[in-house]
């Protein structure tokens, strides 16, 4: 009996689910041999409440999403948080710096009364999560790795060291040397430092490593001419939720 897999989206851009389809034809066929995809609203019409593994995309940003998520947790044997919004709250939490009434007012003006919102939060702020597939968007190979691990009941081998390690292995010149600031020293690797290799810097989408040396990161950034406030602004893009709760 193949395990039944369901995908659910909450508040987000749905890019994680779409990237999950970015497999080679052979990989898709292998995957369909290993599991039954029973719920995947974005590409599939039929659905069921009978599933074993639930992938959750997006953060939680409305009261009505909380009971929906709890129901999924009750049903699923395994819950996987897919992508930055689900794993760490992601960019959606940028609005948490404002009173919710003000966010509603900025976007909807005089019609704000029609709508509701709560501060955005990751999935594990509402229900326990068994596996995390990090990144905005996740690396497809890592998604495959996590699926294989959970089918075997094993813990996937995901780095808990900073992006700098992979960045050096990729042969990049440190962006600090080029006068650009980067969150790589405290952010969890696993992305092969793709943003830096592509000419940019680390924005922190995979979240902090378990024991980040935040003070030393702040010291480095300050050394290169950013104020603490500017540094905090950079952290906030993906890691507002961690910042608020720590």
């Amino acid at each position, binding site marked *: 009996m193949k395990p039944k897999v369901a995908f659910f989206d909450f508040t987000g*851009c*749905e890019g994680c689910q779409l990237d999950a389809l*970015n497999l080679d034809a052979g990989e898709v066929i292998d995957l*369909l041999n290993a599991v039954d995809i029973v719920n995947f609203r974005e590409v599939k019409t039929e659905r069921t409440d009978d599933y074993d593994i639930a992938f959750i995309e997006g953060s939680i940003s409305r009261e009505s999403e909380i009971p929906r998520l709890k129901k999924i947790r009750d049903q699923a044997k395994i819950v996987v948080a897919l992508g930055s919004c689900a794993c760490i709250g992601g*960019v959606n939490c940028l*609005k948490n710096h404002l009173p919710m009434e003000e966010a509603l007012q900025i976007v909807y003006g005089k019609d704000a009364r029609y709508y509701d*919102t709560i501060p955005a939060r990751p999935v594990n702020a509402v229900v326990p999560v068994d596996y995390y597939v990090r990144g905005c*968007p996740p690396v497809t190979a890592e998604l495959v790795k996590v699926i294989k691990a959970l089918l075997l009941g094993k813990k996937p081998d995901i780095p808990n060291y900073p992006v700098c390690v992979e960045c050096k292995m990729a042969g990049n010149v440190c962006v600090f040397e080029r006068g650009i600031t980067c969150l790589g020293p405290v952010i969890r690797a696993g992305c092969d430092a793709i943003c830096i290799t*592509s000419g940019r810097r680390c924005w922190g989408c995979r979240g902090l490593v378990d024991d980040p040396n935040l003070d030393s990161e702040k010291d480095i950034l300050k050394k290169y001419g950013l104020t603490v406030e500017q540094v905090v602004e950079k952290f906030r893009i993906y890691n507002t939720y961690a910042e608020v709760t720590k």
Partner: protein
Amino acid sequence: MNQVNLNVHIDLTRVEGHGHIILHTSDGKIEKLLWEVVESPRFFEAMLRSRHYDDVHHIASRICGICSIAHTTCSIQATEAAFGIQPSEQTLLLRKLLYNAELLESHLLHALFLVAPDFLGADSVFPLVATHKDVVVMALRLKKLAYNLAEALAGRKTHPLSCAVGGFARLPDPGELKAFRKKLEDALVDLDTTVKLFKTLSIPDFTRETEYIALKDPKEYAFISGQIASTDAGTVPLDKYLEVTNEFCVPHSTAKFTKNKRDSYMVGALARFNNNYDQLLPRAKKAAKELGLSAPCHNPFMITVAQVVETIHALEDSINLIDKILARGLKEEKIVVKVRAGRGIGAVEAPRGILFHDYTYDANGILTRANCIIPTNQNHNNIQKDMEALVPRLLNQPEDKVRLTLEMLVRAYDPCISCSTH
């Protein structure tokens, strides 16, 4: 015999985001017919405030997981307009090529993965692996090619990386571009197969004329340049975009609706086709003829066919662009950005239609005000009006058929619902 009492509530699938189709009839009369958008808003216009210009396009990209290249490009253009930056010719050529890659991927996903199952009697692409393996393998191959092209240009397709205000932070490898040229030529054969497949599908016969709005550029079939063209009202400059869009809220939708000269207007592949048909490249024109699509076309179900035609245009254009880029040679260009206080408007044709980003910055390059108007925002009202015209013609049919036809209508628009709510 009309359906006397219908109580239809469709939680729409095979679209991006959450929307419901509600239809209640009583004694054969329509009591309620609504296109409801229930997606959770993310408040991007609020989140972009206080951000540094170099983070703005990175965040704005996250408005949409399918058309992140459109949002990134539009965002960068708005910032460049605010700062008075004119991107180099090389940057524009690379942006166009990258843009085509996203258009290809997005249109192919819609036509072959989301729409085709309706015509082939399946609930998704998954069972088609068994029944139509050749089509599925071809679709995955084409999608992957478009994805890899974007990857070569911008590091990855979903939330591209190398695009920056003022230029590209990393240039593609010319050898790799040359290899893509060959692969794109080979893919023309796959697109011929796609055209043949679409020729066999019977598209519902329904027309409702509306206003069609798209970017128009005298030089080419416009995607990242031009002014706002309407089939009703002629062409106006970008800074008049608020007078065209006229956004308004309705309680049953977290996404705003729009209207211009009529009750509603349409944007997207068919609106572009109706405004800019003459500028399509030869192979695309030939495909349009083969598929029975001619401008003006007022059948919304033909949007997907217009997408197939645009896919061929984008592929042909990409081959031409690679030739141009390789002929002039890629040169490292230093990105210089001088910030200044001011307002800038960016406009592009996202796969689903015209997209606007409007930013105001302070003298330190910190964003103080943002407004984003999304293609699907602009289509929601047109979807509603189409449903109102279509449903009375469906009521003599079985409920299953009513449901499927309504689903197919909304799906034809390829709505990007979470993007429209942003």
